[in-house]
């Protein structure tokens, strides 16, 4: 039982990171109907920027404090927000009225650009990462829960709660949902569609940066290709939950994390990626709109 609970905790912790990344995929898909394949690389840049602010541009990594970690995270999230804004403005906006395949190929191009540009700028070798002071694990019953896992879950929960508030209870969020249903009509309501799309990219990139920092804290290293697998997994999570659906991305991420950890725990960690992608295929066969996705049927 203890072992099972331990796997559940680990699964939720990994799943929370997947969910944060998946939210960016799903929100951008919502407003643009585009899979932003560069999203996993923004996640990498988030971790990388935290590494640079902590080790190269300050001595935070030598004397980590909680306050310092928060500051580093905020700086890195802000930088990634800006990068998300620039990616949309430079790479996707000029192709807004072009066929969708053009944007998709461009997205793959942007992804390669960041990955291999990252190898040039940051160097291809992994670097040790640590912005948190050493914290003892928390003992609950027979369970030992790592401090990083607790922080990951708490931060992810807070960010997801905040996002939920923005999307469903603010004027901007209502405008985002309107743009995702019909951008032309949203414009007729006075919604500046370009602004909403930029806002969505910034929001998604900020969450990806947070996920990158949490991921790098959990598996303490950073390197330019670190966004590949988590990015792909988060994309799978977004599809499982129903692409374009915000609560779906959260559910999909947590579910995928849990399944992976249970497979690693009870079978073999070599199987976990295979199971994740098998799940994607299964969902696409059985319920292509995803767990929470609605099949689009409207009354006319």
């Amino acid at each position, binding site marked *: 039982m203890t072992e099972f609970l331990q796997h559940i905790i680990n699964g939720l912790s990994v799943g929370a990171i997947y969910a944060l990344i998946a939210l960016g995929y799903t929100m951008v898909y919502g407003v643009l109907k585009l899979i932003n394949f560069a999203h996993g690389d923004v996640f990498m840049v988030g971790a990388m920027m935290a590494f640079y602010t902590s080790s190269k541009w300050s001595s935070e990594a030598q004397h980590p404090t909680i306050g310092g970690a928060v500051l580093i995270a905020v700086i890195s999230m802000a930088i990634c927000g800006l990068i998300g804004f620039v990616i949309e403005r430079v790479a996707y906006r000029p192709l807004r009225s072009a066929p969708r395949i053009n944007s998709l190929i461009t997205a793959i191009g942007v992804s390669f650009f960041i990955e291999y540009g990252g190898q040039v700028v940051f160097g291809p070798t992994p670097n040790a990462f640590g912005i948190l002071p050493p914290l003892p694990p928390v003992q609950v019953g027979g369970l030992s829960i790592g401090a990083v896992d607790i922080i990951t879950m708490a931060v992810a929960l807070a960010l997801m709660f905040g996002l939920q508030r923005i999307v469903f209870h603010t004027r901007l969020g209502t405008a985002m949902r309107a743009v995702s249903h019909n951008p032309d009509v949203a414009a007729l309501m006075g*919604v500046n569609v370009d602004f909403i799309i930029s806002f969505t990219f910034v929001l998604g990139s900020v969450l990806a940066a947070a996920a990158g920092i949490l991921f790098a804290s959990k598996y303490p290293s950073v390197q330019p290709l670190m966004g590949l697998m988590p990015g792909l997994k988060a994309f799978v999570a977004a599809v499982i939950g129903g692409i374009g659906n915000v609560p779906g991305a959260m559910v999909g991420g947590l579910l995928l994390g849990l399944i992976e950890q249970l497979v690693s725990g009870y079978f073999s960690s070599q199987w976990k990626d295979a199971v994740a992608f098998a799940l994607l295929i299964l969902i696409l066969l059985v319920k292509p709109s995803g767990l929470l996705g609605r099949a689009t049927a409207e009354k006319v």
Partner: protein
Amino acid sequence: MAALLSLENVDVHYGAIHALRGVSFEVNEGQIVTLIGANGAGKTTTLRAVSCMLQPTSGTVRYQGQSLAGQKAHQLVARGLCHAPEGRGIFPQLTVHENLLLGAFLRRDKAGIAADAEKGFALFPRLKEREKQLAGTLSGGEQQMLAIARALMARPKLLLLDEPSLGLAPQVTETIFRIIEDINKQGVTILLVEQNAHLALGIAHQGYVLETGTVVKSGPGAELLKSPEIREAYLGE
């Protein structure tokens, strides 16, 4: 009286298709002006050119005396030009309430927005009963009512209505036309696009007939309604 809206020799192309050819007309403040014509005559295209959903290839659209060239659709809402698009264009997966709030997207006065929502409900009591429902679950007539109520939430000076009778039962259509007249009496200028020429000309101060992208006839609504050509071509007599 200066025209609130005027089009001068407006041409619109969709790729190789020449959709509007030198369309010119005026809408004076306080009037109901209708554009009638068959399917594909360019009625919806004209509205789209007015609300800047598309840019004319040549010619000028003027609103309040100023050219709209280079403007974006969302900028016109702030200037009181609102377009209730064809096929109702409501947001099916948002509630009736959220749809109305989007109509008031640019406004910040919460009390005024709530008061206007109540006014909308007074016009269309059916919407009040369905306030929390997803708009996609409404009947066709209710969706049309929502589209009009939503457009009014922006407090328009000029309201563009695209085929409000589309797909509706005759009684519902009559109710909606009566309400369009009421809205006009409260000071909103209306540019109405309709296939139902009889009803549209019946309430319009001025009518224009579009055929294959060109205005072929114009005159006061009541006069056009009596014209033998119109009766033959559009009223099936």
